[in-house]
């Protein structure tokens, strides 16, 4: 089954982790990938891998914090690939801070990447998605559904992604498109590997949002993405799909 044959997927964060695994999975199912990331080297490595596997991919170094760059990237995708069937907002950053340590710069950076970038790339892609009757998938997080100590800005942005997804779903419920989010728990990615835990963190608080099961693999998020973005999920719209090994069931 090649559910994404001849579909065009515009994806952010494809230089590593969930973004790279998603690009590889969709390409393996026949999609043409238009991949964005700020990390030029990682982006080139993903493209080389996909091309070597016989897939189709174009890349564009993009800083999703810039509204102009978001619009230019969507335009470039349409010019290169003819349209947009799937938008995957995957790029995201995370860190731990005590509330009193969060600077305005920290706050703005987190919001610009995780929330503003998602909104303005969505704004740029929407007319093309509607034209192709396609769909949008945002990567949220279990942190968008649970209150977690020491990650207030991250929780706020991911909560924002969750409700942005639902609000978009309502605004476009009369259009033939679908808008959904995936809320992963811990996933073995560079974001998690580079995650710096506060030295003086209260572990009894962190234990409440640390999974009993081991972290997910990025390929597991990619397989959910590939299903959700396919016509098989034709009735799934405005949903936040948790994929977190049971973390948010508690």
């Amino acid at each position: 089954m090649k559910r994404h044959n001849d579909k065009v997927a515009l994806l952010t964060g494809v230089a590593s982790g969930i973004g790279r695994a998603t690009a590889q999975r969709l390409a393996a199912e026949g999609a043409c990938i238009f991949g964005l990331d700020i990390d030029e080297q990682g982006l080139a490595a993903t493209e080389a891998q996909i091309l070597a596997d016989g897939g189709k991919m174009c890349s564009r170094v993009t800083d999703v914090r810039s509204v102009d760059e978001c619009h230019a990237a969507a335009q470039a995708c349409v010019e290169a690939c003819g349209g947009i069937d799937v938008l995957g907002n995957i790029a995201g950053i995370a860190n731990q801070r005590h509330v009193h340590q969060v600077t305005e710069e920290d706050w703005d950076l987190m919001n610009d990447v995780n929330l503003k970038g998602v909104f303005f790339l969505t704004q740029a892609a929407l007319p093309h998605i509607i034209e192709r009757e396609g769909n949008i998938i945002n990567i949220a997080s279990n942190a968008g559904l649970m209150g977690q100590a020491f990650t207030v800005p991250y929780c706020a942005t991911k909560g924002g992604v969750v409700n942005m997804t639902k609000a978009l779903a309502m605004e476009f419920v009369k259009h033939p498109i679908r808008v959904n989010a995936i809320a992963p728990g811990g996933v073995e990615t560079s974001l998690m590997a580079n995650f710096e835990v506060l030295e003086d963190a209260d572990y009894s608080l962190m234990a409440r949002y640390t999974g009993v099961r081991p972290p997910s693999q990025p390929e597991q998020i990619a397989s959910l993405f590939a299903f959700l973005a396919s016509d098989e999920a034709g009735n799934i719209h405005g949903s936040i799909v948790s994929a977190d090994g049971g973390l948010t069931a508690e």
Partner: protein
Amino acid sequence: MSEQTATELADHRYVGKVAAVTGAASGMGRCIALRLAAEGATVFGMDLNADGLDEVAAEAADAAAAGGAVHTRVIDIADPAECHAAIAQCVARYGRLDVLGNIAAISWMKHAVDVTIDDWREMFAINVDGTFFMCQAALPHIIESEGSIINIASNAAFMGSAYLAPYCATKGAVVQMTRALATEFVKEPIRINAIAPGGTDTPMNRDYQLAENTDYKLLMRSMAFRPLDKPEHVAALFAFLASAEAANIHGAVINADSGMTAT
């Protein structure tokens, strides 16, 4: 992931697997039974409706090429002893149990003041007792096979809909039962999830009985903008969710309702 692996995963996910499915005679249960059989599963289909079961078993003949089939047992899931007996029979016959799908349910609309104790108990016996005791009976076998359980909840578990107090209560119970079971068994190598469909084009919805003197303004608050969903879509989600492709999805309640619960 290589192209071959993606293809393999999508096409042959249930070869050699045994799936017990309630409500298999019609609607979502029928579609799920047929979808799993088409992907190679041996399906043990259960329902109160014997004729419907026979039809589904006959329809599944096409699945033989994939190694799949639908076998049946008439059962009243409101009786916990029958739930245990049916699961025991399934395991005795087919040697294992990989997937349990709790799909059977009833629904009707009534003004709350008109609901009798018998109405209430019947709704709970089928929608809640049946789901719980099927889980209880199946769990040891699901743990042995490292399989998964999927309960069908409803958007009614999340929306307070007029004239549906008993139904909303049962589906809310299914959601929380799913989450509690997921936590209780988080250290076991199994997965327990729920699907919360919206209005789906099934006999249950086609033959739906509205309450007398319905206030349509209230009814419209819980009406979808999009047309009724196809049961085949619920089956596609079920087939994904119960497969190894969804290995990290546990304790999740997945809304598949065309945007009904987004608001």
